[in-house]
């Protein structure tokens, strides 16, 4: 399963907002961090706002903030807003899909898709944020010996 650019942008954005739901973050800040066009990102954010996952805050220091429930919202909830999954029995077919080889290949690809979807459905934003925290802690620990060797005082996370 390959996620489209808008889907990835939506996931990056909701995770940025969910990290600190009280903080307003501007579209420009996210666009700069993820090296994307602010214009492109604005479309994604307005879609997220329409779905009630973020809300825009006007005025000085305005931007967007998280408005969803990080413990309930899954990666799949966000992905489904931007991706179209073919329903079983979907008539839109690629050439060769009706051949025996095409059908056998389709069964394997569908197996992979089902695993990917189950994975996305099982991961909430809160779980993702914890994963992010663990990764950052792990990276800080792996850097610690170098910093200690260089005489920098390391504070335990």
């Amino acid at each position: 399963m390959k996620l489209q650019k808008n889907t990835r942008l939506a996931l990056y954005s909701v995770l940025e907002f969910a990290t600190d739901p009280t903080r307003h973050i501007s579209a420009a800040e996210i666009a700069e961090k993820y090296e994307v066009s602010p214009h492109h990102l604005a479309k994604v954010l307005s879609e997220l706002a329409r779905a009630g996952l973020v809300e825009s805050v006007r005025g000085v220091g305005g931007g967007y903030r998280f408005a969803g429930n990080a413990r309930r919202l899954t990666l799949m909830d966000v992905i489904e807003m931007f991706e179209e999954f073919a329903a079983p029995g979907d008539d839109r077919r690629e050439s060769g899909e009706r051949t025996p080889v095409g059908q056998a290949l389709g069964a394997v690809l569908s197996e992979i898709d089902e695993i990917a979807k189950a994975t996305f459905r099982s991961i909430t934003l809160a779980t993702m944020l914890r994963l992010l925290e663990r990764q950052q802690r792990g990276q800080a620990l792996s850097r610690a010996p170098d910093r200690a060797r260089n005489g920098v005082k390391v504070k335990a996370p």
Partner: protein
Amino acid sequence: MTVTRAGRPASNATRAGAPPGPVAAAVRPVRRGDLEPIVALDARVTGLEKRDYWAALYRRYGASLRAERQFLVAEAGGRVVGFVIGEVRDWEFGAPPCGWVFAIDVHPEARLAGTGTRLLDAICAGFRRAGVSKVRTMLSRDNNLVLSFFRSQGMMTGPFIPLEMDLDAGDGRPDAGTAR
């Protein structure tokens, strides 16, 4: 593998009494008297009463004095509100010894109170005492509730891929009849 907690509606035939609202549960080793509420809880969640199965599990894991086998229950307000079962398996599929959790369940009315987390923490502590540093489990990919729970605890997809086939479909196997 019997990882449960799928949210199926309660059956009238079961005897699982609803415990009082979510309160902090204490985790302890199972006792014979816990079997009845465990059978009822499993029946309520899965819709199937498996009395003989649970009795056999109790004999194998509950009555065992081996540190590698664990059958723990969560108790709140004097009632059993959850359980977890697991064991240390050595060199299964070539993997170094690791802890396997193969059943975990929390009473529907006792959820969202950290009971599942306490049960998992307790069995993981037991696995560490038994000398292993890895814990695994396996469950249906449709079981989103439990899948999300294990994910929230930090579990991720492991290096194994579960495979299966229908034994009555031998003719359909790609290499059926091929000598190996």
